[in-house]
């Protein structure tokens, strides 16, 4: 049970940590792609 809890908290921590850095990065990349598309218009 302790191991299951630890694994659960690890997964949650991983989602939070990757979301914390991934969401702003994804937002920035989308903004850049939108601007880059102007090259092909």
């Amino acid at each position: 049970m302790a191991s299951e809890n630890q694994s659960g908290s690890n997964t949650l921590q991983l989602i939070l940590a990757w979301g914390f850095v991934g969401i702003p990065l994804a937002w920035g990349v989308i903004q850049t792609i939108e601007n880059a598309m102007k090259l092909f218009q």
Partner: protein
Amino acid sequence: MALLPFLDRSHTIAKPGFSRWMVPPAALCIHLCIGQAYAFSVFNLPMTKLLGITQSASGDWNLAELGWIFSIGIFFLGTSAAVFGRWVEEGGPRQAMFTAACCFGGGFLVSALGVYMHNLWVIYLGYGVLGGCGLGLGYISPVSTLIKWFPDRPGMATGMAIMGFGGAAFIASPLSVWLMAKFSTPTHVGVAESFITLGIVYFCFMMVGAFIVRVPAPGWKPEGYTPPVVEQKLITKNDVYVYDAIKTPQFWLIWWVLCLNVTAGIGVLGQASAMSQEMFPGKVSVVAAAGFVGLLSLFNMLGRFFWASTSDYIGRKNTYFCFFALGTLLYCTVPWAGSIGSVSLFVLCFVIIMSMYGGGFATVPAYLKDMFGTRYVGAIHGWLITAWSAAGVFGPVLVNYIRQYQIDSGVPKAQAYNVTMLIMAGLLVIGFFCNLMIKAVHHRFHMKPDHEAIRAQMAVDAAGEPAGA
């Protein structure tokens, strides 16, 4: 750091069950902030109108004076990474990340004061010196920790962090523009308030990384991982002390490899917008050129992850061979693309070149680890960053001056970059041979088991000697 014991290396040792996949986000917390340096230019134009508001007034700063902020920052990035590399390595990543957060966030706050006082020297000191030290410490702080957590995929691990540095401008640029729009009024340009906000936000973001980061317990290995039994010539199992590493020819060859790869890319990156418009007059508009710059930045970021990960499979030396051989071919193709008026071929050449420019940065920590071991890889990487500082000067100077010389000699603007491209190709050929000459480090440079004890004793002896002895 006795005042803040939680920053010590001993307090960051991971407990059993800690997932090593928590460490790349910790590193990204740092690199996604400090990479803002690439987007600092968005403040330049508004800072030329701090007094005049709608247009520059007498007493307002000009772009040349403001350009020094970034240059000083990059100079202190290289210097601090070299000088404090050993301290970062021995003190652990959390202490270094905390210091980097204080310096980088503090740099923004001091710069806000400089804007408020309208004193450019305070901004040079704030963002340039203090922020530059934050950049240097932050850049190298997670490198060796990642390599220790991912002995099976060191290229991929450091590539992920350094990808963050390349991607940070994507966040910083629109965020800074949005903040300035929020804080500006008809009688005030909102630069100081934007600096304060960014300083606080970046400090908090970097502190999250400092809290998350952990170092593996001594002797830790990934589950199921067995170090390769067959010895590979260019992957050492020994460590080299940082000040011994910089005495080896291998270090200086890698220094030139990085410097030449960066020189070839950085000059083009700075001139991409103007180059695309001048080489294809009437075909590439100002808006399309801005899109081209965005595309280059995107490939610069993606290349960091792609090439560094690829290097885990094909080897570091072969990866750099790809950069130099393919880069030379592509640089030679660019003038031809211009002559036949093919924008698509021109864009294709440069996005691949930019991916290899980014890949050069991201693959080099793993190259150093292969040559000098993991013990002082962060500190050695710190010294190597000086190659970046040097390339930051060489690259733009080469591109700008050669272009100007060509135009002054009567060459049409559309062809003014042809010689530059061939010179860049020449630099990559030199880089190819530097890479070719890299061999395994001689065993006399390897650290002995009692190396640390001898060094400690030497320090004690030196401290005990009377002055002038």
